[in-house]
């Protein structure tokens, strides 16, 4: 097979950090090639070099054996390579049509809007994207926005597409639809590089895989010849076993319960109860209302009717401080928005809930805070320069650990975690799940809301929601197939 895209001995430094240290990758024509590595392995840097956004300090990039275009020639790059970046590269305040033809609305002279919209509709139709060309892009959902980006990427005529964690923010059915699309593109001979933290996706959609570790190339192999464990070993550099959830016997005391929770359009009649020493999962598709229920439990949302009881005390609806005071800890869905204050230090972020106990008369004693923070950093194994480093500087997994630290700092009786392992790597994932189980062993009751089946494996039982109702209580020991069938409403 001919090599379509190649990077040879690429070196890239940012100040004193070496992001890529003589890394290479070769992707054959027409294959879907996975690029794996833990956070900080150099994947994102390789993407920006392969797409011509950054110049390598040394080494070269070849497309079909020919040297890559000059960095300033964006159009030439875009004819070679298209990329769906992790961060959205659309302009939310402009229409879909204009985003599709951004900076090429016209060759010269005035823009003919009617013609532009017609071209946009044609382009969307070609790639079977069911989106209104005149809608504001900011109003689209994540899946639609991604499809618009894919259509735009392909419209330059590139035969090589990079997909940088496209599934990170999609739910199950949307991921399936994306895969159907990717297979169709592959049949048309399009070469793809696929980046993901989900190894099962790699086995499902890719033919070969390259692993980067610590800014270097580790291996390239056909997916079929590489067992799961070997892949994880290559990524982490040490043999790690898959996460083993622990067994335990839940206590009798109910620490978190709800009765008749209803919020119009999101969920109806949700009754649940979590005992001390028990982990209860909440599963379902994106529209099932599971996140809405969890956010109501912690007070981020206010239900139309129904009650929430935390640790024996009935909590005022929609009042986060009251829920925290009653003994609840929580990890919100989007850590960047609700989880931490990026410019504040690790120590400060982790101790916000207990600030009142770190000093008198509204003051906060820096020494006490530091002490507590150092302890939390050690307990959760947060990789940081120390309690004074701003959380914004940490990698995704470590930032999430800080969010966990904040949830756990007050030894909560009840813990609610939403998508705890979103966008974190294998080892961080295990540490975070371990932290939930540790808290439960100390006597807390936990609710784990997640799109990841792996996260739900630590649960003693999983409540499955469908269209806003709890439809099934699945005890431990389920298979993926069983659970997904219930989540999709295929099987009652």
């Amino acid at each position, binding site marked *: 097979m001919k090599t379509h895209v190649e990077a040879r001995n690429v070196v890239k430094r940012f100040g004193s950090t070496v992001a890529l240290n003589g890394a290479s990758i070769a992707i054959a024509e027409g294959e879907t090639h996975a690029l794996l590595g833990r956070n900080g392995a150099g994947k994102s840097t390789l993407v920006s070099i392969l797409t011509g956004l950054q110049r390598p300090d040394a080494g070269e990039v070849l497309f079909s054996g020919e040297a890559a275009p000059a960095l300033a020639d964006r159009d030439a790059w875009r004819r070679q390579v298209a990329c769906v970046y992790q961060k959205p590269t659309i*302009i939310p305040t*402009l229409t879909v049509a204009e985003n599709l033809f951004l900076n090429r609305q016209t060759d010269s002279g005035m823009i003919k809007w009617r013609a532009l919209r017609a071209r946009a509709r044609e382009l969307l139709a070609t790639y079977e994207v069911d989106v209104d060309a005149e809608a504001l892009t900011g109003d689209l959902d994540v899946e639609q926005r991604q499809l618009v980006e894919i259509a735009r990427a392909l419209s330059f005529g590139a035969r090589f597409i990079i997909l940088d964690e496209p599934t990170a923010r999609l739910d199950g059915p949307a991921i399936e639809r994306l895969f159907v*699309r990717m297979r169709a593109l592959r049949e048309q001979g399009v070469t793809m590089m696929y980046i993901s933290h989900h190894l099962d996706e790699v086995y499902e959609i890719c033919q070969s895989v390259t692993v980067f570790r610590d800014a270097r190339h580790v291996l390239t192999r056909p997916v079929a010849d590489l067992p799961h464990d070997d892949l994880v070993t290559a990524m982490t550099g040490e043999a790690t076993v898959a996460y083993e959830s622990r067994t335990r016997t839940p206590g009798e005391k109910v620490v978190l319960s709800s009765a008749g929770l209803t919020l119009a359009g999101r969920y109806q009649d949700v009754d649940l109860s979590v005992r001390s020493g028990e982990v209860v999962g909440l599963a379902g598709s994106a529209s099932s209302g599971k996140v809405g229920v969890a956010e109501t439990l912690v007070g981020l949302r206010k239900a139309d009717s129904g009650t929430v009881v935390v640790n024996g005390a009935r909590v005022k609806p929609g009042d986060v401080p009251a829920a925290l005071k009653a003994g609840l800890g929580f990890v919100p869905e989007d850590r960047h928005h609700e989880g931490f204050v990026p410019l504040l230090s690790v120590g400060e972020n982790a101790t916000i809930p207990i600030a009142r106990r770190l000093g008198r008369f509204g003051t906060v004693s820096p020494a006490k805070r530091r002490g507590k923070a150092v302890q939390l950093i050690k307990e959760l194994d947060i990789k940081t320069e120390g309690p004074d480093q701003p959380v914004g500087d940490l990698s995704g997994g470590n930032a999430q650990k800080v969010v966990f630290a904040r949830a756990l700092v007050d030894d909560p009786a009840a813990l609610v975690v939403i998508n705890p392992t979103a966008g974190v790597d294998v080892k961080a994932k295990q540490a975070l799940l371990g932290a939930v189980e540790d808290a439960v062993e100390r006597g807390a009751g936990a609710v784990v809301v997640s799109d990841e089946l792996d996260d739900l494996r630590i649960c003693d039982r999983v409540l499955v929601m469908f269209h806003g109702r709890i439809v099934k209580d699945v005890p431990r020991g389920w298979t993926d197939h069983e659970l997904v069938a219930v989540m999709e409403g295929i099987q009652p």
Partner: protein
Amino acid sequence: MTTLTAPAPRLRLGRFRDLTLVPVIVLLLIVGAFLDPIFLTTGNLTNVLQQQASISLLVLAEAMILISGKFDLSLESTVGMAPALAVMLVIPATAGGFGLGLPGMLVIPLCLLVGAAIGAVNGFLIIKFQLSAFIVTLAMQIIVHGLQLGPTEGKTLFELPESMLYLGSATWLGLPASVWIAGVLFVAGMVGLGYFRVGRSLYAIGGNSDAARAAGIRVDRVLWGVFILGGMLAALAGVLETGRLGAVGSGQGVGWIFMVFAAAVIGGVSMDGGKGTILGALTGVLVIGLVQNILTLKGVSGFWQPVVYGFIILVALMISRVAGGKAQD
């Protein structure tokens, strides 16, 4: 997913978003007509337009800068400083100038050049040096005003070359020349930002500058151009204002920037960048101009008028919050 639903033709409110202030303008015209018989006369309305002509150029400049996601507070100082400096370069030392003996014809080009230079300095500090636009232009507002006060020693310049007075005082086809100039520039702005790639790139940069860069837009160059153009528009506003008043006072332009922001924001230009139109900004200017006129006709004390303007801004924000539905930062 292979289904392709044809987008049903439906009324798009988005298209009329620029015109949300039109009912307000109509309402003000009706209210004004009832309150004072003079209000709805050609003479009075022409007067409103002429008074707003120079500030409207600042609104045009600020709207473009805001749409590109940046900020410029220094425009108001340029309104006084650029004409003052240009005039001093051409008038004799006895009239308060530098006595360089440059021909009077050069005064307007010199003035625009000064405005462009101020914009270029802003652009350099904000884009190349990557400083905060808010603080840079705040400092520049103080410096530029100081550069007018220093050489003039706070005095008003009365002896102006003929060419400096012409644009702000002439009448073309029955309307003041300044109204024509502002009108033409606004039309150019609307067409430029609505129908040309470079104009659309302002929206792209203000909406998501990384995405704009990835799409091949020369973000730095465009932004720099916007700052320079902004400075030149402010200098031109200074020329019109000087012609209207017949002198360059030390306080020319001082305090305008608040009204400029108010007009742009109630006209629908977002402070977060990427949103708003030149037409919307124009309606914002007209609303403020009409309110000002009505208040003056009714004899409301100039000392009390700021209270009314402040309230107008708040009410406009509340209306757009209710209509737009999204929380504002």
